[in-house]
């Protein structure tokens, strides 16, 4: 079961004087669930774009098969008047990359219905996509990524604007996919708590470096203080991970 799907070696990314990634090295095995955490602007989305081949790193190399990537991009609301239904968006995951005009075989139609049902969106299948809420669109995007039978899943903040119940639906669907088909998941998120039960390893991209490892090996006071270069506290409260003292979490202090 130690089959490598992604190999990242000495990856560096720099925009002018700003260094986002430095000497980043990690590997991803079949069926692995990797959470990518870090403050805004740390390079989480850039890392995904490098994996997708849409952004060239300034150093290092990335080895992976890009032919079967399921991608859930960061939420971008669709135009209100788009001539497209929910099911059409999901269908793109099935045959959107194929040439020609084709009618959908009944078997594929059923697959689309099934995957839409699995994200709890059956009632949205025939609704105009542009009129759906951000969370509803997000669920359909996950369905689109799943129906493509991906060999690698890349998700950028897929839980944004989902309520707790649907967060759990999405996480368990991704979790199921990696167990049943061995599809590794790279899950970019600002909050590790909704995926604590699924995640194998955490990659934390901090202002002063990065760390990768099991949840407790990375999300601890010592490691995060090193990555931020300042005193940061990591607490476990009722099973949840709470990080206090990071510069982009100022609002946490105001709550006190």
């Amino acid at each position, binding site marked *: 079961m130690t089959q490598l799907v992604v190999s990242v070696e000495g990856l560096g990314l720099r925009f002018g004087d700003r260094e986002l990634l430095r000497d980043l090295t990690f590997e991803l095995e079949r069926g692995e669930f990797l959470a990518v955490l870090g403050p805004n602007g740390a390079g989480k989305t850039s890392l995904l774009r490098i994996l*997708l081949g*849409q952004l060239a790193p300034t150093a290092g190399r990335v080895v992976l098969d*890009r*032919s079967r*990537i399921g*991608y859930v*991009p960061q939420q971008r609301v*669709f135009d209100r*008047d*788009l*001539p*497209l*239904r929910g099911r*059409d*968006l999901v269908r*793109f*995951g099935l*045959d*959107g*990359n*194929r*040439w*020609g*005009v*084709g009618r959908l075989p009944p078997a594929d139609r059923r697959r689309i219905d099934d995957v839409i049902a699995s994200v709890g969106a059956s009632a949205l299948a025939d*609704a*105009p*996509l542009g*009129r759906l809420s951000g969370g509803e669109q997000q669920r359909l*995007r996950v369905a*689109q990524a799943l129906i*493509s039978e991906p060999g690698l899943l*890349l998700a950028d903040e897929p839980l944004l604007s989902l309520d707790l119940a649907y967060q759990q639906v999405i996480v368990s669907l991704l979790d199921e996919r990696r167990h049943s088909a061995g599809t590794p998941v790279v899950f970019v998120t600002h909050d590790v708590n909704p995926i604590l039960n699924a995640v194998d390893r955490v990659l934390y991209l901090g202002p002063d470096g990065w760390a990768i490892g099991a949840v407790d090996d990375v999300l601890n006071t010592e490691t995060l203080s090193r990555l931020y270069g300042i005193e940061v506290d990591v607490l476990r409260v009722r099973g949840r991970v709470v990080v206090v003292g990071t510069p982009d979490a100022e609002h946490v202090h105001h709550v006190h």
Partner: protein
Amino acid sequence: MFTTLLGEHFVHTALLAGAVVAIVSGAIGVFVVMRGLSFAVHAISELGFTGATGALVLGLSPVVGMIGGSLAVGAALGVLSLRGRERDSAIGAVLAFGLGLGVLFLSLYQGYATAATNILFGSIVGVDDAQLVALAGVAALVLVALAIVYRPLYFAAIDPEVAAARGVPVRGLSVAIFLLVALTTAEAIQVVGVLLVLTLVITPAAAAQRLTVRPGLTVLLSIGIALVSTEGGILLSLAKDWPTSFFISAISFAFYAAARLRSFLAGT
């Protein structure tokens, strides 16, 4: 008078030419509207005017010049793949200079002024058999190309990032759509003229997308509205001696207004 005209060969040619152009304009229009390329179409069309007047000065066929001008601008816009405001202002700047050139060419041209008027306002009833064959050939080329790229083109128009992740050649398709739009524009100019191209390439698609959310049906409705507008316009201009282009634009706008009214009444 009207019924005798219906028996005339030139009227049949005009109706056929109108149908050909309507089908291809209606189909491509859906992608133009979805990608927000209305202004680009207008620019491609006006630069077609520059190409046509340039060709007249050189003693060449204005149609060849027009297709050349449209394709040149279409290719440039596709390759540069500008976005948002940058694209908007770049198109504006190029469009203005192109029109300036067109004005110069027109003043240098010593021939009949009707040639220029026809380019600007269309001359559907002046289409001859050879022109009809050329129109049909180009239309067939555009429709076949569109059918081949249909699914990836739709995908890329809606969701370029994910389409790229799935291996869709987003950049190449962007160039392709501009070239197809340029060819379609050159077709539409011959029916409704440079100034009214949008009435066939934008209005039917804009109306269709308010009537349905099904992608395939949107394309068919857009083609249908373009067809009814064009054929209706030609027939009305036979009954009453007003410009064909006026009738075509009036019918397609009526569809658009009705579609907007419908969505307004439906509260969407």
